[in-house]
């Protein structure tokens, strides 16, 4: 039975619950927008990284380099799309 619950993944799950709890502080405590959004950015990207490495086994096989290149390229385009849109349409720069 124990062999079905590898420590690495159990710890990953516990850690993701902790990160969710920390993110929730933003809702239950009185924080300024700047601090709140910083907390959310940190917890969200840490959660994503955790899923990628612990649960999706991204760095474990020979195609590691291709996988990370692909994910970071997707992320780069995502961030350019989102912040480019915000810059032009919301922040009016």
């Amino acid at each position, binding site marked *: 039975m124990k062999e079905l619950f590898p420590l690495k993944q159990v710890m990953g799950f516990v850690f993701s619950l902790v990160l969710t709890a920390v993110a929730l502080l933003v809702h239950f405590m009185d924080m300024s927008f700047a601090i709140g959004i910083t907390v959310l950015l940190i917890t969200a990207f840490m959660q994503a990284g955790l899923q990628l490495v612990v649960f999706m086994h991204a760095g474990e*096989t020979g195609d590691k380099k291709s996988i990370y290149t692909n994910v970071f390229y997707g992320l780069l*385009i995502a961030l350019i799309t989102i912040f480019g849109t915000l810059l032009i349409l919301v922040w009016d720069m």
Partner: protein
Amino acid sequence: MKVDNSLPLEYSTEENSLKILGFWIFLGAEIMLFATLFAVYFTLENRIGNGPSGAEIFEIAPVLFETFLLLTSSFVIGLGIHAMRLGNKKATMVFFSITLLLGAGFLGFEIYEFVHYVHVGATLQTSAFTAALLTTLGTHGLHVILGLFWGLFILIQINKRGLTPETANKSFIFSLYWHFLDIVWIFIFSFIYLKGMM
């Protein structure tokens, strides 16, 4: 077909490795899809017209249940893949079944949430904000619905054929998809709900 036994079953042939890499590339495209939805949402979130704002309609309880269900399902399918690598067919199927049940639970809460939104007058046509919100949530929800059927068919195949390089490969790719949906949900949870209620 050359089978390399030093690698996990899902990677054991060249075709299998290429399929996994191909699916990662698909996920790269999915990241960009959801990025465009987030860009639209962040642009329109304050354009509420005569409709309600996010802070007025978001409820923390169902969102918390949804988050917990999806996080747990993501963990459980990870255990499923681990059991698959141990060659334990029964445990794999049990973990996959629990994953799908948790996914169905998530969907139940999301449907409740959508009914609630319509009830308080936040429909797809109410304002730019509600349109962007429901499109983003709906796209994620549709992915989950698709995942439920996909997972169900994979379960049926494992049951019929056992853990072969083929079924293991399909299961692993499905687990990547499921974890990806969890990642997208974390961003929805953080930057739509929590940010909206801040």
